[in-house]
């Protein structure tokens, strides 16, 4: 009980202390967008008959006719009221766009992270146990391959092989086959929604659609995770408590899993948190290649057309997620190693 309350207190304190950073991100993005070259009003007024009048109209609509400090104040006011503005690229309120697209990105990232962890941890452990042998070299080779092939290349290759040549994968567009009916939206995570609706055929369709993009993303992050696992495993295998456990004659599997791996997971957890946050933002290319309706490709489109509101909304969202992820890692840390939560 007391551990729970200290954890909650810690989490609360951590969260409160991250608020100034969020505010800073807010103001910084706002100013950054305004100093970038390119006038969004001119860009959007690109119809065949668009003249000065139309440009002025869009500028006014976007609130760009006001001085920057006033724009900032209005923007902060809007944020306070939960209004992130409206995207000109999609024509929808940014909040609605993000809300409908975030689950897609999260579902993809979670799946990819899961695949990556399930691959990377055994690989890392194997490499650490057979340090210097061919297993170690093979793992290093796989890691190097994963990191050096850019995601859009591996994505297109996977599509070419599994969709175009072999015909095993469904067509690589979006989250579910276009002819499949969607489940009623409960969480926005298709796998969960299909399961809730009891539509297992739909669930399979959504899962099949998820495999290639998730693998593409996982391929890219296996390397850091496997390397960290390997290093942490080596450190803990060489430590006193493992030596003690071994000398006591405990079964090797128990020594490796319970004593070595559990202690080695701490740094892996940290890296996984960071990897998750970066993946969420950095999977633009994967989302583009697989027409995945996620937040990253949304923000990129907006950025290319100087559409301020979605970019600002996206950065704010990413910053908030970063805070939440750090918080979660922190709490998990406390559970994995109780010494951490002692103030």
């Amino acid at each position, binding site marked *: 009980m007391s551990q729970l309350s200290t954890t909650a207190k810690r989490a609360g304190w951590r969260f409160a202390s991250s608020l100034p950073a969020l505010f800073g991100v807010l103001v910084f993005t706002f100013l950054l967008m305004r100093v970038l070259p390119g006038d969004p009003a001119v*860009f959007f007024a690109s119809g065949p008959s668009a003249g000065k009048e139309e440009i002025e109209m869009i500028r006014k609509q976007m609130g760009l006719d006001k001085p920057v400090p006033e724009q900032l104040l209005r923007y902060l006011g809007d944020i306070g009221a939960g209004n992130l503005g409206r995207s000109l690229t999609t024509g929808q309120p940014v909040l609605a766009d993000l809300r409908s697209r975030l689950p897609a990105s999260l579902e993809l990232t979670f799946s990819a992270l899961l695949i990556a962890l399930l691959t990377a941890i055994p690989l890392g452990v194997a490499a650490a146990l057979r340090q210097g042998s061919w297993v170690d070299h093979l793992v290093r080779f796989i890691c190097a391959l994963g990191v050096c092939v850019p995601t859009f290349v591996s994505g297109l290759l996977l599509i070419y092989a599994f969709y175009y040549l072999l015909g095993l994968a469904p067509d*690589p567009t979006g989250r579910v086959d276009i002819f499949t009916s969607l489940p009623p939206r409960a969480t926005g995570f298709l796998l969960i929604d299909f399961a809730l609706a009891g539509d297992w055929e739909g669930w399979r369709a959504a899962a099949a659609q998820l495999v290639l993009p998730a693998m593409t993303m996982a391929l890219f992050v296996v390397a850091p995770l496997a390397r960290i696992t390997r290093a942490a495993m080596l450190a803990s295998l060489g430590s006193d408590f493992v030596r003690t456990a071994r000398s006591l004659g405990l079964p090797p599997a128990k020594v490796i899993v319970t004593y070595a791996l559990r202690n080695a997971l701490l740094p892996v957890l940290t890296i996984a948190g960071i990897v998750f946050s970066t993946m969420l933002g950095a999977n633009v290319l994967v989302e583009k290649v697989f027409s995945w309706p996620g937040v990253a490709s949304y923000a990129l*489109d907006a950025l290319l057309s100087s559409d301020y509101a979605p970019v600002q909304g996206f950065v704010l969202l990413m910053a908030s997620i970063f805070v939440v992820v750090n918080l979660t890692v922190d709490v998990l840390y406390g559970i994995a190693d109780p010494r951490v939560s002692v103030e």
Partner: protein
Amino acid sequence: MSILRTACLASMLLASTALPALAQSRAETLRHVTGAAINTLDPNIPGSTREAFGLSLLTYDRLLSFGKKQLDGKWVFDLDKFQPELAESYTVSPDGLKITFKLRKDAKFHDGTPVTAEDVKWSLDRAVTANVLGKGQLLTGSLTSPDQFKVVDAHTFEVTLPKPDKLALANLAVVYPVIFNSKLAKSKATAEDPWALAWLKENTAGSGAYIIESFKPGETTILRRNPDWNRGSAEKPAAFKRIITQTIPEAATRANLVEKGDADIAIDLQATDAADLEKKGKLKVISTPQYNAITFVSFNNQMPPFDKIEVRKAIAAALPYEDMFKAALFGRGKPLYGATWADGKAPTGETFPIAQPVKTDLAEAKKLLTAAGFPDGFSTTFSFNVGQAGTAEPMAALLKESLAKIGIKVDIQKLPDAQMSTLINEKKVPFFTEGIVAWLPSMDYFYRNFYIGPIRWNYSSINDEKITEWAQTARFEPDMAKYAALGKELNTRHFELMPQIPLWQPSQDAVMAPSIEGYVYQFHRQIDFRDLSRK
């Protein structure tokens, strides 16, 4: 929200039907893949994408639509021929000032309300009054004020023009003057938004061939056929029961989908993919040179050294046209270079653009450059949009290489689209490539919109008294012989001044399943799905 719910219900119903029925529905469904997004249901909203224009042609009717004609064996829209849509017939008074439309009596909006002259009046008033895109377009057809539109009776409608204008009817057939269900729209209007701009952006109030089933901007739009629609040429509803337009950003994936037969049609593939698919011969590929578009190399004619005609002509003589055409478009399009004009005068005047008598001649280029006072050349930048990088990048590299041979050092600048638009609008780009499109590609329209005044679309910033005068006169010239004579003068003058160098008209490659029929190249460079059917 309710659209979503309906879509869910509809798709659940669909899913519950037996398998043969599903296979059937696949045959009656057209899946269209595109790289861009539909961002509004009302084409009038500033910022509308071309895909949104395409959609509005399906969900809304206009008074008229363009007919079609054959150009080099391909079906394209015909600027001078109209087919009835909501108007059953129209008559133009002998003095050309009054157009009277007889409306169809059987036309109904999607909610069942009959279409009346009141709806037409409200819609056209909106197009010329509200802060919408239609305003700027319709004035090119002398349609500027609600006073010009009159309801005679429930099914008769009159348009009055201040001067006879060749483009008045054509302007009523473009995407902006769509006819709204005025009762429905008015019920959604507010004091600040009397024309229901906000509501119509996300809802349709039309009478068109298709009804929106679901609309996810940037992802998919699903349309259901309107069974009561009979405004097509064959007096029956459109052929496809459902149309799915899906945004697929990756061009290679779009090509794969069409090739595998998972998608039925795409018009915006990379030139390489289109060429490749054509070679494989499994699909139907219809390449139509975009006869209302031009890709050109432009200069700012007000900015030294491009304010000198000799410099512009020197560059025109130094461009490696053939190599550029092959590298950028794989030769898919219609070249606008390499013509021979016997007496130095333009051979035709009814049309623009026409092929220019320019060819690569470095000795001549060097001579012109020396005459301009730059025997050693100069340094400049050549800019293009990131969005056009696929074609502009190889082109720019070849241009740079060729110009270096006559001493012009070129620094290539690849600019984000928004930045490029801004710089062009502020007239700050010296030397660049751009593409233009005219919905209504008449000769005078091109000259009036792209070669006159301080507007953004006057890319070369040319300010020539003669061009201005002739183009404005041509607009209201009813005598076709005189019109052609003016055009001949304009085309000749264009070549003499060389404000910019037309390069080519890129092809629109429509790649489709072999069973799809009826494709017509349209003015807005989108597919009019009402034309299509499956054999």
